[in-house]
C-alpha cells in the first residue's frame, strides 16, 4: 500500500532532476569562466614578458652603439618606449662598468628596493613575476655585453583579463546557464512525464481489477488506511473521532458458482461485469465500488450512516436480483450483503471488512439479503482471536484441567467410571468450557497435541487413583483428527506402561458422525487401540449422520445414548422408542449402554425399567475437579439411587 502512494505521487523525482541539471550547468559555467580567465591571464603575462625581453635588448643595443652619454641616450629611449602609456608603472635600471642610469614612472619609490632585492635573488638574465604589498609586477633582467638592463613594470594583464571576463565571459556564461535551465526544465519534464505515465499505468494495474475495471482489494485497503488510518492508529478524543464515519458493504453473489459451473467462466465473467455495472450505477461518485475477487464486491460509502446504508443495501439486493441475460437465458443471481459502520462496529479498515464479512455470512445463512453487523458477533470474534493466540502458552502452562463426571450403575448408584472433560482455567477469562476452545484448537492445528495432553493427564490421574486404591476407568473424548496422529497408539501404550496403568482403565469416546465419516482412515487405528486393550465408546449415539453399518463394524464396547433422547423421554414416545432400540441394539452387539444427561429420578427409573444399566447426568454429579472427584470416590462411591 505504501508502494502505491509512492507510485502515484513522486513529485520529488522531477525536482531532483531539475536540481541536478541546474547544478551541472552551474558547474560547467563556473569551470568555463575559471579556465578561460586563467588561460587569458597566462597568455597576457607571457606576451608582456616577451615584450619586456625585446625592450631590454633594444635598450642595451641602442646604448652600446650610441656615441652619446648614457643618461642622454637612455632618456631618449625611455621617452620612445614608455611615453605612449603614461599610466603604466615602470622602473628601468641600466648598470654599466662605470656608469648607471635609472628611470621610474608611477612606481612607488618605497617598493623599488624590495623589488630589486627580489630580482637579485634570481639568476641573471631571467624574467618572472613578483607580488609585493603594492601590487603585482613583471620583471626582466638582461645581462648584455656592456650593460645590465633591469626592467620592472606592473602586471596589467590581470586587469585587462578581468575586464574582458566581466564583459564577455559573464554574458556568455549567463546565456549558457539560461540555456541549461531550458534544457533542465524540458528534459526533466520529459523524463518525469514518461516515468509518471509508467507509474500511473502500474498503479492502475496494481489497484484495479482487469475484468470489471473496478478498483481491487489493494486499492480499498490503501483507501481505508488513508481515510481511517490516522483515526484508528492514534487514540483521539471522541469528538475528533466522530468526524470520520462511513459504511462498508460486503456484497456476495449467491449463485455465481452455479452460473460459472453450468454456463462456463465466460458467462460468469459476463455476470460479474454486469453486476459491477449495476452496482456502480446505484452509487454516488464519492462512494467506492471494489471487486475483492471471486464474486465478492465491497462498497465503501464515506460519511454514510447506518439507516441510509440499510436502504442502499436493499436497493443493491434488488438490482442484483433483476435477471441478467446470459446465453439468451435470464439468470437471476441473488446477493447477500453485510454492512458494517465505522467507527461503531470496528476501529480499523481491516476490522471493518471482517465485521462486514461476518454480517454477510449471517445474511447468507438467513437468506435475508442485507444484514447489519451485530456487536456481540464482534466481541465473540475478538475474544476467540485472543484465545487463539494464547493457546500455545496455555498448553505449556498446563492451564487446561480435566474435570470428571461420574458414570453410575443406575440400579445401585455405584460409580463405575468417570468421563474426563477439559476446562480451560484462563488467567483472565476464568473457567472456560470446551465449547469455547475446542474449535479453536482444531482450527489452529494443535488438536493432536491437545489430545496427547488429555491422554497424559488422564493416565496420570488413573495412576494416582490406583495408588489410593481407587480403580475407576476414565473415558476421554477424542476427535478423528486425534486418531490421525500416527504416533498416538505408541504414545498411549508408553504412557500406560510408564504409569503402570491397565489399558482397560482407559476408554476412548468417539463422536458418531465424525466416526462414520472418517471410518476408513481411522479404522486401522481403532483396531490397534482395541488390541492394546483400550475400550471404545460411541458418544452421542443417535445424533449426527448415523450409520448402523459402521457401528456394527466398529465393534464398540460402550454406546452412550445422546441426552436429547433422554431429557424428554417421559412424554416423547418417539425418543422413548429410539432409546429402546439402542438398548436392543447394544444387547445384540454385546456392548454396555450409558444414558447421558439424566437430570431427574423419573428418567432414571424409566431407564432402569427399560433395561439400561448405566447413566450419567446432573442427577448424580456435575463434572468436578480432580481433587473433588478423588474425595467423592474415596468417601461415597454410591451416588443417588434411582
Amino acid at each position, binding site marked *: 500500500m505504501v508502494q502505491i502512494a509512492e507510485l502515484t505521487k513522486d513529485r520529488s523525482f522531477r525536482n531532483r532532476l531539475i536540481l541536478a541539471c541546474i547544478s551541472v550547468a552551474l558547474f560547467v559555467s563556473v569551470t568555463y569562466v575559471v579556465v578561460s580567465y586563467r588561460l587569458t591571464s597566462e597568455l597576457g603575462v607571457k606576451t608582456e614578458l616577451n615584450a619586456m625581453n625585446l625592450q631590454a635588448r633594444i635598450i642595451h643595443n641602442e646604448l652600446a652603439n650610441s656615441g652619446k652619454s648614457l643618461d642622454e641616450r637612455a632618456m631618449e629611449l625611455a621617452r620612445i618606449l614608455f611615453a605612449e602609456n603614461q599610466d603604466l608603472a615602470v622602473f628601468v635600471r641600466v648598470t654599466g662598468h662605470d656608469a648607471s642610469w635609472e628611470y621610474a614612472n608611477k612606481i612607488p619609490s618605497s617598493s623599488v628596493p624590495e623589488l630589486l632585492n627580489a630580482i637579485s635573488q634570481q639568476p641573471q638574465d631571467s624574467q618572472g613575476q613578483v607580488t609585493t604589498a603594492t601590487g603585482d609586477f613583471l620583471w626582466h633582467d638582461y645581462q648584455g655585453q656592456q650593460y645590465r638592463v633591469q626592467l620592472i613594470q606592473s602586471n596589467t594583464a590581470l586587469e585587462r583579463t578581468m575586464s574582458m571576463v566581466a*564583459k*564577455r565571459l559573464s*554574458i*556568455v556564461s549567463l*546565456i549558457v546557464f*539560461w540555456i541549461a535551465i*531550458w534544457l533542465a*526544465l*524540458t528534459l*526533466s*519534464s*520529459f523524463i518525469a*512525464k514518461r516515468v509518471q505515465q509508467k507509474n500511473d499505468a502500474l498503479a492502475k494495474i496494481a489497484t484495479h481489477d482487469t475484468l470489471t475495471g473496478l478498483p481491487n482489494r489493494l486499492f480499498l485497503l490503501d483507501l481505508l488506511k488513508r481515510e481511517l488510518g490516522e483515526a484508528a492508529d492514534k487514540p483521539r478524543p471522541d469528538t475528533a473521532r466522530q468526524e470520520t464515519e462511513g459504511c462498508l458493504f460486503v456484497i456476495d453473489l449467491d449463485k455465481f458458482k452455479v452460473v460459472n459451473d453450468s454456463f462456463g467462466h465466460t458467462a460468469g465473467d459476463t455476470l460479474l461485469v454486469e453486476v459491477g455495472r449495476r452496482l456502480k450505477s446505484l452509487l454516488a461518485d464519492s462512494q467506492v465500488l471494489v471487486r475483492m475477487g471471486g464474486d465478492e464486491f465491497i462498497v465503501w460509502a464515506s460519511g454514510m450512516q447506518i439507516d441510509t446504508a440499510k436502504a442502499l443495501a436493499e436497493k443493491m439486493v434488488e438490482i442484483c436480483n433483476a435477471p441478467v441475460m446470459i446465453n439468451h437465458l435470464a439468470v437471476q443471481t441473488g446477493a447477500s450483503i453485510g454492512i458494517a459502520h465505522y467507527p461503531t462496529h470496528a476501529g480499523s479498515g481491516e476490522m471493518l471488512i471482517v465485521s462486514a464479512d461476518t454480517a454477510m455470512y449471517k445474511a447468507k445463512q438467513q437468506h435475508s439479503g442485507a444484514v447489519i453487523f451485530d456487536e456481540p458477533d464482534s466481541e465473540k470474534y475478538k475474544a476467540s482471536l485472543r484465545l487463539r493466540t494464547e493457546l500455545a502458552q496455555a498448553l505449556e502452562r498446563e492451564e487446561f484441567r480435566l474435570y470428571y463426571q461420574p458414570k453410575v450403575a443406575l440400579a445401585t448408584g455405584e460409580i463405575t467410571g468417570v468421563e474426563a472433560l477439559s476446562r480451560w482455567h484462563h488467567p483472565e477469562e476464568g473457567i472456560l468450557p470446551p465449547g469455547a476452545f475446542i474449535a479453536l484448537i482444531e482450527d489452529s492445528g494443535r488438536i493432536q497435541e491437545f489430545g496427547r495432553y488429555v491422554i497424559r493427564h488422564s493416565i496420570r490421574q488413573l495412576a494416582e487413583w490406583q495408588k489410593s486404591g481407587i480403580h475407576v476407568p476414565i473415558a476421554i473424548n477424542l476427535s478423528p483428527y486425534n486418531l490421525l496422529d500416527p504416533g498416538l497408539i505408541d504414545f498411549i501404550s508408553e504412557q500406560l506402561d510408564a504409569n503402570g496403568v491397565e489399558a482397560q482403565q482407559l476408554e476412548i469416546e468417539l463422536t458418531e458422525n465424525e466416526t462414520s465419516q472418517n471410518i476408513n482412515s481411522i479404522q486401522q487405528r481403532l483396531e490397534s487401540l482395541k488390541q492394546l486393550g483400550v475400550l471404545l465408546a460411541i458418544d452421542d449415539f443417535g445424533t449426527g449422520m448415523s450409520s448402523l453399518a459402521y457401528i456394527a463394524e466398529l465393534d464398540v464396547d460402550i454406546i452412550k445414548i445422546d441426552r436429547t433422547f433422554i431429557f424428554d423421554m417421559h412424554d416423547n414416545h418417539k425418543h422413548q422408542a429410539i432409546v429402546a432400540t439402542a438398548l436392543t441394539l447394544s444387547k445384540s452387539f454385546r456392548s454396555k449402554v450409558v444414558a447421558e444427561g439424566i437430570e431427574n429420578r423419573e428418567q432414571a427409573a424409566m431407564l432402569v425399567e427399560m433395561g439400561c444399566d448405566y447413566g450419567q447426568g446432573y442427577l448424580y454429579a456435575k463434572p468436578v475437579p480432580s481433587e473433588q472427584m478423588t474425595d467423592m470416590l474415596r468417601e461415597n462411591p454410591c451416588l443417588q439411587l434411582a
Partner: protein
Amino acid sequence: MQVTQNLNTLDRSLRGIIGIVVTAFALFNGDYIEEPIIEILLGIFGLLNLISLFSGWCPIYHLAGIDTRSKD
C-alpha cells in the same frame, strides 16, 4: 504546436522587463561587448522574452508541461 497562454501576469511582466532590457542592451551597448556572437545571442534571448511578453506563452514551459497561468 498549439499556442495557448501558459504564463501568469507576474511571470509575463518579469519576462517583459528582462526582454526589453536585454534586447536594448544588445542593440545599443555601443562598443561595450565588442563581440558580435554575444550580441546575437543576447538579441535572441531578449527576443524570446519579448515574444513571451506579447503572446503570454513560453515554448519551454509548453514543452515542459509547466503552466503558471491556469492554476491561479
